[in-house]
Every structure is written in structure tokens, then in C-alpha cells.
């Protein structure tokens, strides 16, 4: 491929900003300067869909209404471990209004073994949701019950009931994505160990490392199962007409749902169209078509009618994914001067009937330490399957590592912030620590537990890393329409993060037109394939092709205009809604007139994500660089009641070139609130005697509401790396990793006693204070 050399901004403005020369394909657009010199990119542009959302005009999957549409409901198991001896749908089928009943069976026509309460068994489609709900009550099932195990520690005992007697496939989006076990090393309910993570495996020699250490810290950290509560539950509306299946889906990945459906039914991908105009949130569990997707499709095929199948909140809690728990052992050695000599990690966690409870990435990469080893085990239990959850494995991992580093700093007699300056080689986090500490007022931090009286204040901090993941299989098309109209199209979905808006900004920036003049058509697999909304890949993956496609149509339009203006395309500039000759400003035409004069009714171009500039061959599992973050927390702890209140969080982050600063800050707010909730409030309550989740609602499953939300201030540092035509990266996951452990460190600073388990509910605080 022909290449050219371009100079791109490199470094951090106000700190070490310079330029880097990169050899890039000739088709790449010229380098953008830093954000302050751009018109739309980097600015707090209002969300494209803000009005539609606040006025209720936005149609989510649950709102889809099609002529003749049926409503489906899933009948689920109400026992955690059993064989089905008989199952009759006769009574359900004879209920007036019931159109179709589909029983789940294996390939050899057997009923599936029941492994958890809430496992889907039968789907029913009826003329109304009420009838479908009534019908599933008329399904008669008989079970042969077996003993079961819910508790992750009980499940590890040799005598525990065995969850899986056959090997199951690892879910690739289930946990600490990367080097994982395939379920083959299974002993009882214990699977593993996985000895690696995103970026490689063990290094050095632990034993030698610990021998060198002057101080050794050993501790076990525990984290809970955390269930997904997106505003919109999982669900689809499937309209399967001969030769064409249309799937409206609440999903984080229209393209993978399309692929799954095509594969499941053995039909061509072009026969399946997946649409997600709006998705009401997704935190990692909405990548797949699930069981409900194919179920709705089957019911649609059986009846020839569209089928609506949205899960209710209880189903969402029990069956649609959760963040696995962890019991996380860490041993860290350091020399007197603080240098780390060895890190040993061992973890056990449960993703219920699924895999994916690893926690290793953060411990492995965040600090330089020559000797590192990890063993991560999954433990099967008779509970709903885990799924990816905003920075899988890293949030659990950070909860251990960042408390351990805090504790180690204290043992070494070094301020925890200064200690990180010493052992952390990340340039971006160094700046984040400086700026964050200043904004937060870190110097106010006192000796642990030193506030007078029972109401104690504490300050803490923690940090995290997340790789600069990119999905190269990401494409966008930009179209100019004769007479007026600029469109960008991609299957990428906007799950609430603001993807529509940033695509509008990028195209508008390239074409020199107002953002509102760009129509953004996304969330539809009839458009070029976009990335899934996971791994924080969206912005880094789809903005470069969006810009490149806009650049291509711009070049074509300039060619046409050049002839008219008797200039050359190379001499023409497109900005502020005009095209003009930079040598002769009288040669000018408005962008709108240029569109009127187009030779053809459309100019279109599609571009795909190029490899990162500079020879970085990026793909999932291989990422260079660091989306570093540092968060600071201020808490109040009532030592008489054990309640913790987070007063303030300062979150310092980087995401390459921020495209929309307001949306980046929104994402940080969301990540912080979710992290706080994980630290203090949310946990799945399983009844060990019956296997049911007892708080499968939004009343007893405690999430923070308005009164709980702290003051959140964010610092977003522009960090140019010259990696792509936009040099942008995501923020969704980085925003969530450090919050819980920053709060834990602040709680320690308040009360002078460490809490090694989340959520830090009053019982744990009072126990730690020896008040019970």
C-alpha cells in the first residue's frame, strides 16, 4: 500500500505536547490538530437524541409495535437442580389467545437439565402479555430434584453437589477476557486455574521475589455477585417473514446478534436484519441474542407473526448475567524503599453455571514488578450465569490490588499517593495524580481514624488501567445527497453513551459543516458493520472510519467543485459551510450549493478501521497503551450505625482525544456511581436453602438513588498518541474500575480499620469496629 508521512500531535497539552511523525496509508486524512483548534470535536455538543429521550419520542425495543404482533413470555424453572421427568403444555396451549408454545429441548430431543432457578424452559406466544403470563402458569412440569449448592465456598468442598457433569464452553464475554481456561481442567465444581490475563501470563520467579522483600503483605479480599440492572431489560421483537427475519433488539451489538441468529437457524446473514435505534443501557451482558432471541424467532416462525419478548426485571436479575464474585488472595512483597519484588494472586469466584470469574489483569499490569504469578479459578454454583460487567475482572481485581498497595504504603511509612508515584511508571496516571490531588485537596488527608467523635471523615484514592482496545472490524459509510443531506451509517449502536452524537461531530468536523446538518443512521445491520459496545472500543473503533469515509466523500466532492471553480481539489478548503480556493478566495461556493451541483444523486464512501498508526497491530486481546485513571474519594462513616456516605469523588481520566467532553464526563459520572453502588449497596441475595434470588427487583436490590449520589468532579486529560485519524478512545470501563476501592481506602482512612469485603454495609463496618 502506498504510504505517506504525516505529523500528528503527541503527548499531553500543557505537559509534554509535541509531534510524532507516522507513516500512514495515503488514503488517510491529514492529521487533526489538538482539540482546542477544532470546531466540533472535543466540544460539549448536545446529544442528538436528548429531546427524543426526554419527551418519550425515542422508541426502544420494548416500545416496538407491529401489526398483528404477539407477546411472548418464558416459563422458567423454580428449582435449582433437577431433571425434568415430564412437562406438559396442553393446558397452556388450550388457553384462548395462545398462538404458539415452544419447549426447549436438546438436539437429541431431551429436556435440558435444570441447573438454576430461572432457567428458561418454555416460550409461549399469545395475543396479549396478560394471556402469555397466564399461559405459563398452566404449564405442568415434574422434576426429579437433586441437592444443589449456592455458596461459593461450599461448592468447593469435595462432597458438594456437582453443577456440571460435562464440560461447558467458556463464554468469551464472561469475565476477565483473554487467556482463559476452556473448562477442561475441572475438579468437582472448581475449574482452572487460568494463569494469564489480557496481556500475557506469569513472569519472573515468585520465590526469589519474596526472598528479596523486606515487607510482605498477605490478604484476602471478597467481592459480591452484582447483577445487571439496565433501565431497559433484555429483549427482542422478531418479525420472521419468509426470507427475511427482522430483529428489533435491546443490544450492545447489533452485528453479533445478527451473526448469532443466522448461525443458529442456518440462514444467510443477509436474511437477518437487526435494528436497535435506541438501547436503554447495557453494561456487558447485552452482546448476545441469548435464549430469548432464538425463542422469539421460533415463535414468530411458527405463527407467521411478529413476536415481542422483553424480559421482566426479575428475569433480568436471575438469568441475564451478573458480575461474578471473587475471593481474592494477594501476597505482595516490597523492599524498604518501596520497590515491588513479587506479586502473587489466587482467586476463586463464581459465575454461577457459567465461566468468567477471573480477576487477574490489573494485578498483572498496573505496577512494574519483575515477579508475578496468578491462579484464577472459576467455581460453579447452581445460580444464574455470569456475564461481562463493565471492565470484567478488573473491578474485582482493583478492589484487592489497590487496597493492598494502600496498606503496603502505610507499612512502608509512605503516603499512598507518593507511593504510587514511586512504583507506577504510567505517565498519564502521574499527571492524573497531580491534578486530581490538587482538585481534591489530598493534603487534607489525616491519620487514619483520627477524626474526633463518632462521625468520621476519610479520604482515599485508587487507580486503574484499561487497554486501548480497538475492533478493527468496524466500518462506516458516509453519503452526500444531491441537493442537500449528509448521512453517516453504521450498524454500531448507541446504548446511551452518545455514539450518535460523536459520529455527527466527527463528520461535521471533516466536512466543515454544522453538527446538526449530519444525519446519523446507526443501529441497523443493513448498514456497514460497526463494533460491539464492549471493551470501551466504540469510540476508538468507529470514529476513525467515520472520519475517513467523510474524508473520501469530501475528496470526491472537491474534485467536482474544482472543475466548476477552475481550481484544483488540492487547493480547495472545506470549512464553515463553504468551499474556497486557499490561493484565491473569490473562487468559492457554499457547501449547500456544492451539494446541489453534484453530478450524481449520491456520493458515498465506506471506510474501515485501519491498523493503528505506528505499526501497532491492534485487535481484541492485543492492546498497547493505557487508559489510566485515578480517583479520589471522600467519605463520612457513622461509627455508631456503621453507615458510609460518599461525599465526593474526583475522577481523573484520559481517553486519548476526547470527542465530546460533556459525554465523556457523563460516562465518568455513571462509572463512579456504579462503582460506589458496588462498594456500598448492591449485592445479590441468594437463599441457600431454596436456591432463589430473594432480591430480584429494584426495591430490595439496593441501588443508589438521588440522595446517595456524591458530588462528582472529573478531570479529563487529553492524551495524544498519534494512533489513528481521530486518536480517540473510550471511557466506559475505565470510569468504573477505581471507584469502589478508592471508597474502601477512604473508609479505612476514616475509621482506621480495613474492610476487606464489599459491599461495605453497616454490618461489616460494625463488625470491623468490634461493635458486634
Amino acid at each position, binding site marked *: 500500500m502506498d504510504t505517506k508521512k504525516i505529523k500528528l500531535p503527541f503527548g499531553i497539552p500543557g505537559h509534554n505536547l509535541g509531534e510524532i511523525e507516522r507513516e500512514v496509508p495515503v488514503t488517510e486524512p491529514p492529521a487533526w490538530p489538538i482539540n482546542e483548534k477544532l470546531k466540533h470535536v472535543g466540544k460539549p455538543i448536545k446529544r442528538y437524541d436528548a429531546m427524543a429521550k426526554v419527551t418519550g419520542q425515542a422508541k426502544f425495543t420494548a416500545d416496538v409495535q407491529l401489526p398483528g404482533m404477539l407477546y411472548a413470555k418464558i416459563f422458567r424453572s423454580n428449582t435449582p437442580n433437577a431433571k425434568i421427568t415430564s412437562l406438559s403444555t396442553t393446558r397452556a396451549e388450550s388457553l384462548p389467545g395462545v398462538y404458539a408454545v415452544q419447549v426447549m429441548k436438546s438436539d437429541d430431543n431431551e429436556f435440558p437439565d435444570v441447573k438454576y432457578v430461572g432457567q428458561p424452559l418454555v416460550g409461549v406466544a399469545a395475543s396479549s402479555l396478560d394471556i402469555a403470563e397466564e399461559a405459563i402458569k398452566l404449564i405442568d412440569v415434574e422434576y426429579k430434584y437433586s441437592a444443589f449448592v449456592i455458596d461459593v465456598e461450599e461448592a468447593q468442598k469435595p462432597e458438594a453437589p456437582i453443577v456440571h457433569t460435562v464440560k461447558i464452553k467458556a463464554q468469551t464475554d464472561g469475565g476477565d477476557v483473554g487467556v482463559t481456561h476452556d473448562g477442561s481442567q475441572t475438579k468437582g465444581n472448581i475449574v482452572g486455574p487460568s494463569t494469564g490475563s489480557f496481556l500475557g501470563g506469569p513472569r519472573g520467579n515468585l520465590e526469589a521475589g519474596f526472598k528479596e522483600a523486606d515487607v510482605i503483605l498477605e490478604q484476602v479480599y471478597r467481592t459480591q455477585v452484582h447483577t445487571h440492572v439496565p433501565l431497559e431489560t433484555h429483549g427482542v421483537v422478531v418479525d420472521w417473514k419468509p426470507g427475511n427475519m427482522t430483529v428489533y433488539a435491546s443490544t450492545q451489538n447489533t452485528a453479533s446478534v445478527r451473526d448469532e441468529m443466522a448461525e443458529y437457524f442456518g440462514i444467510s446473514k443477509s436474511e437477518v436484519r437487526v435494528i436497535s435505534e435506541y438501547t436503554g443501557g447495557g453494561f456487558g451482558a447485552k452482546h448476545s441474542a441469548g435464549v430469548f432471541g432464538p425463542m422469539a424467532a421460533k415463535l414468530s416462525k411458527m405463527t407467521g407473526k411478529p413476536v415481542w419478548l422483553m424480559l421482566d426485571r426479575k428475569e433480568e436479575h436471575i438469568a441475564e448475567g451478573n458480575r461474578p464474585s471473587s475471593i481474592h488472595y494477594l501476597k505482595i512483597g516490597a523492599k524498604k524503599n518501596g520497590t515491588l519484588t513479587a506479586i502473587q494472586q489466587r482467586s476463586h469466584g463464581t459465575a454461577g453455571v457459567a465461566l468468567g470469574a477471573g480477576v487477574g489483569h490489573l494485578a498483572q499490569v498496573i505496577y512494574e514488578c519483575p515477579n508475578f504469578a496468578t491462579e484464577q479459578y472459576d467455581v460453579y454454583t447452581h445460580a444464574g450465569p455470569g456475564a461481562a460487567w463493565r471492565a470484567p475482572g478488573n473491578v474485582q481485581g482493583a478492589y484487592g490490588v489497590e487496597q493492598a498497595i494502600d496498606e503496603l504504603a502505610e507499612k512502608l511509612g509512605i503516603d499512598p499517593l507518593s507511593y504510587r508515584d514511586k512504583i507506577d511508571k504510567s505517565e498519564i496516571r502521574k499527571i492524573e495524580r497531580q491534578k486530581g490531588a490538587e482538585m481534591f485537596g489530598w493534603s487534607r488527608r489525616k491519620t487514619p481514624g483520627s477524626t474526633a467523635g463518632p462521625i468520621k471523615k476519610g479520604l482515599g484514592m485508587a487507580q486503574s488501567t484499561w487497554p486501548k482496545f480497538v475492533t478493527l472490524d468496524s466500518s462506516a459509510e458516509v453519503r452526500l445527497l444531491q441537493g442537500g443531506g449528509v448521512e453517516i451509517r453504521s450498524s454500531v449502536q448507541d446504548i446511551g453513551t452518545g455514539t450518535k452524537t460523536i459520529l455527527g461531530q466527527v463528520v461535521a468536523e471533516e466536512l466543515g459543516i454544522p453538527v446538526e446538518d449530519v444525519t446519523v443512521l446507526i443501529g441497523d445491520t443493513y448498514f456497514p458493520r460497526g463494533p460491539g459496545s464492549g471493551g470501551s472500543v466504540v469510540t476508538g473503533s468507529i470514529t476513525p472510519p467515520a472520519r475517513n469515509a467523510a474524508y473520501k466523500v469530501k475528496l470526491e466532492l472537491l474534485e467536482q467543485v474544482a472543475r466548476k471553480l477552475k481550481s484544483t481539489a488540492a487547493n480547495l478548503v472545506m470549512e464553515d459551510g463553504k468551499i474556497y480556493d486557499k490561493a484565491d478566495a473569490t473562487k468559492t461556493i457554499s457547501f449547500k450549493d456544492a451539494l446541489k451541483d453534484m453530478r450524481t444523486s449520491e456520493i458515498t464512501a465506506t471506510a474501515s478501521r485501519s491498523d493503528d498508526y505506528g505499526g501497532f497491530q491492534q485487535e481484541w486481546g492485543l492492546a498497547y497503551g493505557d487508559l489510566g485513571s485515578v480517583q479520589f474519594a471522600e467519605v463520612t462513616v457513622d461509627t455508631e*450505625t456503621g453507615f458510609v*456516605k460518599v461525599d465526593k469523588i474526583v475522577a481523573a481520566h484520559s481517553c486519548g482525544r476526547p470527542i465530546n467532553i460533556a459525554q465523556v464526563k457523563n460516562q465518568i459520572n455513571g462509572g463512579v456511581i456504579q462503582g460506589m453502588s458496588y462498594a456500598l449497596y448492591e449485592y445479590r*441475595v441468594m437463599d441457600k436453602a*431454596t436456591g*432463589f434470588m*430473594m*432480591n430480584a427487583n429494584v426495591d430490595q436490590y439496593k441501588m443508589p*438513588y*438521588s*440522595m446517595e449520589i456524591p458530588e462528582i468532579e472529573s478531570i479529563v486529560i487529553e492524551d495524544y498518541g498519534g494512533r489513528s485519524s481521530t486518536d480517540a478512545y473510550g471511557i466506559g470501563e475505565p470510569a468504573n474500575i477505581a471507584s469502589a476501592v478508592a471508597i474502601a481506602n477512604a473508609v479505612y482512612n476514616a475509621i482506621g480499620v480495613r474492610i476487606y469485603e464489599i459491599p461495605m454495609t453497616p454490618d461489616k463496618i460494625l463488625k470491623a469496629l468490634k461493635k458486634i
Partner: protein
Amino acid sequence: MNKFSWYEAKSVEDAVSNVTATASDILGKAPKESSVIFKAGGIDLLELMKEGLVNPTTIIGIKNIPGLNKISYDDKAGLKIGANVTLAELENHELIKEKFYALHLAVAHAGTPQIRNTATLGGNLAQRTRCWYFRSIEHQCYRKGSGTCYAQEGENEFHAIMKNNSCASVHSSSVSTALMAFNAKVQITSSNGKAKEIGMEEFFVHPEVNSKNESVLGSKDLITGIVIPPAKPGTKSYYIKQGARESHDWAIADVAVVTEMSGGKCKNVEIVLGAAAPVPMKAAEAAKMLLGKSIDEAIAKSAGEASMKGATPLAGNAYKVPIFKTIVRRAILKTI
């Protein structure tokens, strides 16, 4: 949710002559059996129906019955509150704020602004426990008439720590905690047209007395209002609720204290604990410690300790004991 027909009651008489059951009476019964129940704000009823625990065939709307939505006060009769007064109306009532501050605080901490706009006083008293075993259609628990309290050995962090050996649920009305401290009486009209007034302590019954309902409400009873005796001079009150969250949550522990001081000494005092036992209860021993004494930090602390005498926490809820001791002490000190 099952289908049901709707009947809008025109008067108290109309309502009580048509009703056949309380929601508690029909708990767990299939919708086939004819049952006519009341709905006020519907906050609790909707939840019970969504879970499938209650399947009425007819619902009588009582929210628009004339005359049940008034608040009045005079120095002799005291405070009268109609059963259909919403929690928001109570919360915003200036006289209640002034003379019955603990009630104001209790109401202001119930639910959310949206819920308080809809929920009524009568409905709040008649609601059922939020014990998660009781609320699960899959668990046939003690409160539903079986002999099994799953919470005893199960998940019990939000459950009772006193009088909990048969059923460990706690009643969900934190408003009742304050009402009991003011010695409120509940006005009830039955189908025979007879009206009666029952003290809060008799209104609520322990599960061992009636496992299937927290109150004495019979099948054809309608709460029409409550009466609180006039506020005596020198009386101050306070209420503290501790939930898992500050916003929109049930009490893990709540306490109302009403203190009448005279000449620097405590002449009368009521201390009521909510979410400690299956129904709200007076902490009589704690109150006795304050009588005739001037109140200071030390005595308030002792009263807090005394309020938890005889506590029998379960495996997961011993933490409620220090919380109660603390909030009892703090609430007492707020009344002097």
C-alpha cells in the same frame, strides 16, 4: 396480573357493605374464588398483585369516598386525619410539623415524593410486610399460614431482632412508628355500620396471635382515619429512620420518641421501635428510665441500651442492635 372488575365506592357504608375480604384474607388464593377487596393508593396492592400473591375478582376504589381526606385539629379532640389523606398532604401540613414533628419526619422519610403523592394513611397502616420470603410466591412462609419462617435460618439481614422466634418479618409502615409514639387510635368502620377506635398497640398483632395479618383488620373493616390526642405543653418529638439507603428505602431500624418535659424533668415519654419486631413496639423499659429525670447524654445512652434488652438477633442482623441503641439515644437527645 389477573383480570378484575372495578367498583368505585360512594360512601363508607357503600364500601363496607360490598367488600368481602382483606388482601390478607385472599393471599395465595386462585382468582377463581370471588373476592372483593379495597384499594386506596394501591402502592402495596399493586406489588402483591404483580407477584401473583393476591388475585381479587373485584377491587373497590375507596380513594374518592367523600370526607376521608381531611386533617383537622383542636385542643380538645386532638388531631384527626382521614384515611385517604395522602402522605404528601401529611408531610406538608404545617400544624403537624409544629406539634407532631416525629410524625412529620416519619412521613417525610417514607417512599419517594411520587409514592407519597399517591399513598394514603389508611393504606400505609394496612400494608403488608416486605419480608422477601413473604413477597415470594415460591415461599409458603409462616406469614402466609405455613409453619415455616425461612428467615430464621436463611437470609435475614433486614429481619426482626426481637420477638422473632416464630416469624422474623418486620412491618413496613414507618409512619406507624410515629403514630404509636403519639398514642394514636385507628378509626375503623365495619359492615354492621359500627365504628370503633383502637389504639395502635391493639391494632397491630404479633404473628403468634395472627400469623396471616399484622393488624386486627377483619374482612369487612375499613380504616376511616386516625386520631391523635392533643399535644400537651412541653412536648417535643423526634423520629429517626435508618435504611440501607437514605432515599426511598424501608427502615432497617426506626424510632420515634415523644417527650413531655416539665420543670426540667421528663413527665411523660413514649419510645417506639419500628423494624425491631414483627410489628412496631413500645420500648417500655427504656421509657421508664427517663421518667422523672432530667435527660442528658448518659441517661439517653442507658435508655438506648435498655431498648435492646431481650434482643434475639439472627445470624445476619446483629448489626441492627447497635443501630437501634444509637438512634434511640440520638432521638431522645433531640427531644430536649
